[in-house]
């Protein structure tokens, strides 16, 4: 008995010690959190990089940005330079934290839910923007955009800022770039020339089929076509005849109307996947299409594939040629189209836990309006990483190339305002002018600006997501026979509750239309 007492008192002691430790830990966190707002916090001074130890109340922000390649070795050098300028201009510094895109989702989820120091972050509709906003992970921006962020609204355009709004409140600002997408067919130029393929004659899937047949019969060692996206994607990636309304569960088959319907039940969908299966059977499509993990331009680079279909934009052929290491030509199959996801696909947001949201917005504004800062983050330091070779054209600094340069992150489309930055040699010097025209000429969906909130139908949403995962890629890569699988797919979707999602989406869309005077 007494021994038991000893044991229990020991456990009590331990628990107490633990609680104390936990409390004091929390306390000190809170303190450092508060101090940075008012007087100068020690924590802030020590975390400040090169610029520490100067003015008292320099705000030090943390900015998370996805990295699509290895981190450039001169990253710190460029960051120091950005901070030097930023400190002069708005008395703030920023710790730019590159995160590999493969870890992005997980890392962001952790950072946003743990309350770790974070001010600015990249967001995207395909990475859960609406749920991040709905769960309060992102700070509401309407007031900030009317205040310190005014210059962003001027540069991005009211129309596109409105497209980010969820229930009237904006939680992110789109980067300035192509805000619409067309659907392009990309081919190897050498083989196009060899077989005298007339590019102007390619307009529809029928025309593409003729090209595929030529390649199949004349080039037995090469696969005629592969899906445009890497990793479990079908041939319809980027196909823009309908507005998918974000997730494809309930779409606008006619983007001029506001009628939400089930894409997978439509005649158009059946026709397309039947055609894809036909191509697959004829051996036109990469046999591994549904499980392939390699990007299409890399398959072309490896000499395995002749062509692919995907989203395009001005300068797309040049961009893909660079990636594939050989000349590619593109044909537009469907013109530019703007839906909400084209705008909300790349955005910058302020984290809910940011200690000084106004300053964070000021920092963000620089990335949308200050050429000096934008050029730095995109291309590095003039004379060290690049030299000017024309009015608006730059090239690698002397003695450097793509493999030896210390700074070439390839993210000018991601960092804020691409219109203000230089164009790299090999690119079209008028690419940004053309992009403006492209954006303006894009056909806008009637629901541009509408974002669906899946919260009221969460249960159905998870079930439908699983069903779509199960069938979509197989059907759209032509691997599965739609004759047999499509009815099964539709039936399972119904069982999973897609009709309830469509109903809810229609309700939200009608409400949105009424609020925004869309008729």
């Amino acid at each position, binding site marked *: 008995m007494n021994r038991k007492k000893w044991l229990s008192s020991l456990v009590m002691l331990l628990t107490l010690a633990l609680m104390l430790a936990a409390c004091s830990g929390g306390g000190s966190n809170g303190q450092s959190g508060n101090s940075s707002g008012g007087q100068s916090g020690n924590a802030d001074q020590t975390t400040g990089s090169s610029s520490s130890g100067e003015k008292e109340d320099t705000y030090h922000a943390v900015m998370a940005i996805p990295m699509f390649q290895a981190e450039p070795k001169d990253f710190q050098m460029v960051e120091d330079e950005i901070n030097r300028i930023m400190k002069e201009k708005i008395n703030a510094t920023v710790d730019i934290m590159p995160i590999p895109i493969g870890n992005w989702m997980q890392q962001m989820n952790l950072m946003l839910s743990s309350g770790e120091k974070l001010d600015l972050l990249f967001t995207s509709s395909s990475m859960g923007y609406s749920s991040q906003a709905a769960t309060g992970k992102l700070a509401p921006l309407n007031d900030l955009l009317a205040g310190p962020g005014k210059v962003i609204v001027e540069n991005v355009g009211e129309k596109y800022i409105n497209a980010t709004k969820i229930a009237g409140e904006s939680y992110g600002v789109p980067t300035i770039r192509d805000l619409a997408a067309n659907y392009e067919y990309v081919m190897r130029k050498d083989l196009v020339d060899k077989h005298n393929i007339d590019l102007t004659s390619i307009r529809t899937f029928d025309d593409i089929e003729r090209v595929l047949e030529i390649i199949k019969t004349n080039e037995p060692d090469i696969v005629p076509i592969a899906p445009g996206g890497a990793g479990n994607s079908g041939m319809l990636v980027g196909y823009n005849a309908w507005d998918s309304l974000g997730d494809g569960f309930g779409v606008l088959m006619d983007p001029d109307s506001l009628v939400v319907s089930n894409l997978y039940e439509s005649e158009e969908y059946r026709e397309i996947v039947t055609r894809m299966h036909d191509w697959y059977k004829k051996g036109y499509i990469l046999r591994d299409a549904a499980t392939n993990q390699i990007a299409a331009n890399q398959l072309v680079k490896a000499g395995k594939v002749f062509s692919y279909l995907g989203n395009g934009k001005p300068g797309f052929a040049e961009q893909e040629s660079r990636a594939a290491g050989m000349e590619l030509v593109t044909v537009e199959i469907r013109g530019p189209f703007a839906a909400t996801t084209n705008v909300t696909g790349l955005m910058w947001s302020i984290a809910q836990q940011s200690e000084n949201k106004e300053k964070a917005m000021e920092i963000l504004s620089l990335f949308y309006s200050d050429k000096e800062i934008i050029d730095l983050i995109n291309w590095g330091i003039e004379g060290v990483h690049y030299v000017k070779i024309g009015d608006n054209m730059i090239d690698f600094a002397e003695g450097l190339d793509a493999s030896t340069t210390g700074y070439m992150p390839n993210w000018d489309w991601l960092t804020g305002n691409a219109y203000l930055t230089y164009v790299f040699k090999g690119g079209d010097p008028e690419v940004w002018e053309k992009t403006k025209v492209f954006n303006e000429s894009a056909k806008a969906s009637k629901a541009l600006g509408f974002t669906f909130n899946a919260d009221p139908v969460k249960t159905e949403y998870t079930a439908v997501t699983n069903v779509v995962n199960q069938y979509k890629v197989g059907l759209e890569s032509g*691997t599965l026979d739609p004759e047999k699988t499509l009815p099964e797919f539709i039936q399972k979707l119904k069982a999973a509750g897609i009709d309830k999602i469509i109903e809810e989406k229609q309700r939200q869309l009608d409400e949105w239309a009424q609020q925004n005077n869309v008729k």
Partner: protein
Amino acid sequence: MERMIEMALQTQPDSGQLAVAATSKRFVRFRKYLPLTLMVIPGLLYLMINNYLPMAGLVIAFKEINFAKGILASDWVGWKNFEYLFATSDAYIITRNTILYNAAWIVLGTMLAIFLAIMLNEVKQKLFARFYQSVIVLPHLISIVIVAYLVYAALSLETGFINKSILPLFGMDDIMFYFEPKYWPFILTAVHLWKGLGFSVVVYFAAIIGIDEEYYEAARLDGATKWQQIRGITLPLISPVIIMLTLLAVGRIFYSDFGLFYQVPMNSGPLYETTNVIDTYVYRGLLGLGDIGMSAAAGFYQSIVGFILVLTANFIVRKIDRDNALF
């Protein structure tokens, strides 16, 4: 635990002794066990921080989390977060897959591991025994993503070893492994055993080494065959370890090795019938929603079922053989 307390009770001094004597005796005993007690502290701390403190987070499963409000101030939603686990037509498939795979693997894995451990024990040359042991453990250390690509290298349609080198030898057609669910129970079982076996072999091997050599000597003198020695000595003596490992595995029967079920089939949709398990279902379903309340609900559900299963299994073991029960 219970037995320890009983023993403690028995060693208690009889009534009538002086309280002072009792205290001093207790003090002596405390002094005697102090080092041992202190040695337990790091382990206890670890358990507290890693296993007990986070239990408070279970409230998340019943809340509609809003980070602006904080966890405690978020709204209660009752059982709503659990609904999606049962409201789907796939509920049957994912539950069946999870349980059947795990049950089959507990049986197969245990038998194979014991078999290999006994074989290892029979290898008398130390160097070879070490070598085999390392070879068996090696797959346990390989990342599942790499394993997935090893499997892909064997099964892929365009470049796979089986489709390009083995099947043509027999004049057979290609097999589209990533589209045919019927092959996957075997593929997954093979991969799981290949990868996971090493660890339990080492545990059983250690248990077998611990058996006193004298038992075998005596048996040999009496003319027992190898088989009789295994049945009569090895198996009974390692049965506590077998029972313990099995009970632990039963407790995790509602969990599945996410990497194995998600990475190895390359997330291929047509295979879901035989590869979709609770963990992958939850992952795929919530990837878009990012709802931590619903994922917490899934975890809660799994651990409750696991807890009940362990209690039941332990109860049954107790009925049969009291000494071998875990608690």
